[in-house]
């Protein structure tokens, strides 16, 4: 049969970001998909030889506008491990509280975009209305809605007072209730089921074979989550990753919905466990220049991110690299797109929650 190549992106209505795929079609079936990345490569990692390591954190934060908190946190964790800086307890708890809040933010954003992609604009608005509340919490506590700039090597710059923390937890509870109504729509609406259920199935074996990460892997039943390693105080709270077994688009939606609820619950536990009081230390300033190399892993909303830092004793790092979750999920995406209908391609691509600006840095 005659083959046709349809370019998908870099400008495409479903995705604001410039993902480039060449879809090889036979009739309506996708036979092959050839991704091209590098369309918005900004060379952020190469900036280490011009930007001092203390200032590089602000650059790393700008890798992505959705996981900006976690990127900043990951960079600081890496540098702290090289420089053996002891981070004060309260600062460590504050970091993971913010991290979980940003996970809720990211998932709400994605659920909205997903709804928009399958043509449910109303639902998109509802998700983003809830996300707005999270952004308000960020603006109140960190000073920025998207770029937070609170992480410094050795701690955090701002404290959240205990009363404020309680208010945040109450607000998140309210948000959780409002979210239930929206979650019901995602779970029960016939049009959503029709578009998502049974589409783009990634089996558990395939998920392992292509090294899927994050919600993508968990929706296929792979129990994989960097938080399980117990770093960053996750060993002190009760945590069990959300798993679904269906592996289809709907399962990926459900995993993210359940993770929103789970994150609210984790924040409850964190606020209970963290040391209370005003004026506790938040920052230990590092001394000297870093020397050595390290890997740091973190569970971002989209999956596992890995930072590699190599320092040579000067104020400029020798090498910095971030392996972002979308990069790891691209093979899985290609696998799913092959063999599906052209009309399902946008849905499948969106359910991996692609972040191209992360991928190409």
């Amino acid at each position, binding site marked *: 049969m005659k083959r046709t190549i349809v370019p998908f992106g870099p400008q495409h209505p479903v995705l604001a970001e410039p993902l480039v795929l060449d879809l090889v079609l036979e009739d309506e079936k996708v036979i092959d998909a050839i991704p091209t990345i590098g369309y918005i490569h900004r060379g952020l990692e190469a900036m280490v030889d011009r930007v001092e390591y203390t200032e590089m954190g602000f650059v790393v934060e700008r890798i992505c506008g959705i996981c900006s908190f976690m990127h900043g946190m990951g960079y600081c964790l890496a540098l702290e491990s090289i420089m053996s800086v002891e981070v004060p307890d309260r600062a460590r708890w504050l970091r993971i509280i913010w991290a979980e809040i940003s996970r809720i933010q990211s998932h709400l954003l994605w659920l909205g975009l997903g709804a928009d992609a399958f043509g449910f604009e109303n639902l998109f608005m*509802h998700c983003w209305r809830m996300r707005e509340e999270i952004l308000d919490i960020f603006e109140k*506590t960190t000073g*920025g809605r998207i770029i937070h700039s609170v992480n410094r090597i050795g701690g955090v710059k701002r404290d959240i007072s205990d009363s404020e923390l309680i208010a945040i937890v109450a607000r998140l509870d309210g948000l959780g209730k409002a979210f239930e109504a929206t979650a*019901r*729509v995602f779970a029960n*609406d016939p049009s959503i*089921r029709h578009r998502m259920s049974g589409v783009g199935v990634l089996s558990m074996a395939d998920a392992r074979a292509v090294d899927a990460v994050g919600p993508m892997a968990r929706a296929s039943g792979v129990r994989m989550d960097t938080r399980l390693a117990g770093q960053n105080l996750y060993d002190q709270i009760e945590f069990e990753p959300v798993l679904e077994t269906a592996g289809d688009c709907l399962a990926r939606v459900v995993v993210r919905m359940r993770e929103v609820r789970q994150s609210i619950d984790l924040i409850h536990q964190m606020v209970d466990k963290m040391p209370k009081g005003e004026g506790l230390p938040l920052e230990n300033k590092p001394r000297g220049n870093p020397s050595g190399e390290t890997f740091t892993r973190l569970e971002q909303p989209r999956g596992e991110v890995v930072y590699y830092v190599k320092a040579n004793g000067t104020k400029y790092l020798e090498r910095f690299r971030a392996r972002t979750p979308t990069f790891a999920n691209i093979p899985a995406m290609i696998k799913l797109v092959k063999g599906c209908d052209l009309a399902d391609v946008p849905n499948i691509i969106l359910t991996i929650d692609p972040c191209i600006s992360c991928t190409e840095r």
Partner: protein
Amino acid sequence: MSNPFRLPMAPRAIRNLFSKPATRRYPYEIRPRFDGARGTIKFDVDTCNYCTLCAKRCPAAAITVSREDRTWAIEHLTCIGCNVCVEVCAKKSLAMSTEAKHVHTHAEVGPQGQRPGHEEWHGADPAIAAAAAKAAAELSIDAPSS
């Protein structure tokens, strides 16, 4: 398969009929910013001693300070609002206000390449400043006797 005649959005739709709109009429109604939100840098020309530390630490290189000329300048459009300069200034001459950054139109750039967002202060020459202080001191000494 769930029942296609169930309308999961119906309760929401009915509630929306009777509730306030979720959005504001933006240019007419602006949400005040929260305390501690990072907005624009404010500079106090009277306390600064032109140590240049803020300029050295600014990750965006938005600040230029000259000790000789006693000038302090900032490019507000380059500033990324990271608050580092405020943290390092020993003289507390810098403050982060919650006021949102001013929006500049393309027309403001102009054919001559004006720099929108550029703000500059000139401190008094130390000699002049010292003379002025001395004069003020003399005045206040003289005041009771006259």
